[in-house]
């Protein structure tokens, strides 16, 4: 026993190194498996306040870009409201009141890794919960995975574990979106039936089947096929409409009837 201890002390540098690496790797593996783990939530409040401080400074340099984005958004809203009035003249359409939008600001954002996260300046105090979808005025952004009182963390759409139900706008064919590209500009479309013929520039939107994103939110446009031989379903490269490297204001989507929908799904599975 004495020899064992003297051996440990003699090689303490190596054993301490081993111990710390084991700690680190257990963190990595745990974190990989459980998205939105306690670690993310527990540190949100602290890291959030730091990011807010830094954000207040960097905001001044982005004012003109933000202004332009907002005026574009207003223009878009005005067009849609005029179109709606025209439709309402002939047919009565009930507006979809299932979703509510909460505006929030991006205070931290990463694009350079395989697991990319964003942080927003709104949290449970503002009605944000886990599993809510987040969009920008250009397209989808991510999904809320961790909430603290005043901040929330998103898993970006450009995250290796992100999988989003999408569809092709022109023929409503259901497909899936994942991200295993090396660039934040492109995503991967999977499960495209081989008989479907896509052309460059075809629009891909959300399917609305996931309870997280409403139907018809812009994801991006088709770029080209990836030729994976011997597979019955094609996969393809997509150009994101969202510029993940330049996100300022986003909207968190609250699905008001989500609980009811989940309950209904569960009930029907029991039958």
């Amino acid at each position, binding site marked *: 026993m004495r020899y064992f201890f003297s051996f440990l002390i003699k090689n*303490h*540098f190596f054993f*301490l*190194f081993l111990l*710390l*690496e084991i*700690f*680190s*790797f*257990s*963190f*990595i593996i*745990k*974190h*990989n498996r459980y998205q939105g*783990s306690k*670690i*993310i939530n527990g*540190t949100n409040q*602290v*890291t959030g306040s*730091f*990011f807010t401080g*830094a954000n207040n400074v*960097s905001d001044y340099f982005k004012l003109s870009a933000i202004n332009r984005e907002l005026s574009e958004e207003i223009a878009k809203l005005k067009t849609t409201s005029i179109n709606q009035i025209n439709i309402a003249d002939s047919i009565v359409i009930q507006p979809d009141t299932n979703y509510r939008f909460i505006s929030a600001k991006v205070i*931290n954002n*990463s*694009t*350079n*890794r*395989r*697991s990319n*996260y964003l942080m927003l300046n709104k949290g449970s105090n503002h009605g944000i919960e886990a599993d809510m979808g987040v969009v920008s005025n250009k397209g989808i952004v991510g999904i809320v995975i961790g909430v603290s009182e005043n901040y929330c*963390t998103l898993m970006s759409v450009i995250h290796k574990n992100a999988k989003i139900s999408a569809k092709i706008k022109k023929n409503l064919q259901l497909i899936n979106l994942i991200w295993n590209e*090396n*660039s*934040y*500009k492109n995503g991967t479309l999977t499960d495209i039936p081989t008989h479907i013929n896509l052309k460059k520039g075809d629009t891909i939107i959300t399917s609305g089947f996931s309870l997280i994103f409403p139907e018809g939110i812009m994801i991006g446009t088709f770029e080209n096929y990836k030729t994976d031989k011997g597979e019955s379903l094609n996969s393809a490269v997509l150009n994101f409409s969202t510029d*993940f*490297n330049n996100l300022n204001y986003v909207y968190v989507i609250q699905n008001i009837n989500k609980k009811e929908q989940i309950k209904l799904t569960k009930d029907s599975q029991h039958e």
Partner: protein
Amino acid sequence: MNNIITKNILRFIVLILIQVLILNNIKFDGYLNPYFYIIFILLLPLETPKWLLLVSAFLLGLGVDFFMKSIGINAAASVLVAFIRPGLINYLSTGKDIEPNMHAGIKDFGFRWFFSYSLVLVFVHNFVLYFLDIFSFNEFFITFYKVLLGTAFTLFLIIISQYLFTNMKNK
């Protein structure tokens, strides 16, 4: 002695903040990102106890990880760098006398020594960081290319900071 400890604690905090608040926002082409905070381990005093070297590297990495939501990745890479450091210093310094008051920097060891010292450690750090992030060797060459670019960028900042923040005049 106390002076050195306070200096290093301050450096520890400032480097984490610089990394997460400023450098992480530099994203050339969306992915090229310098991991400059590792300079903390490079510049620790030569007589730092070995266990303290490892523990401070672990805390440094974990601190950065909390902000980047990449729990464990930066910690693992930093601890490995701290583990290699004493052996590397011995290997590079054969034939040179290491005096008690010397600092691991360009001023005391010269440009060539410091360049190869930083090159090895920064490369190891970037290599571990990028491959742990991807967690597979599937796209080895693309990832390796990113490691090389990241190493070059970080090394550039480290060398520049040596000239900016140390008094180069002879003692």
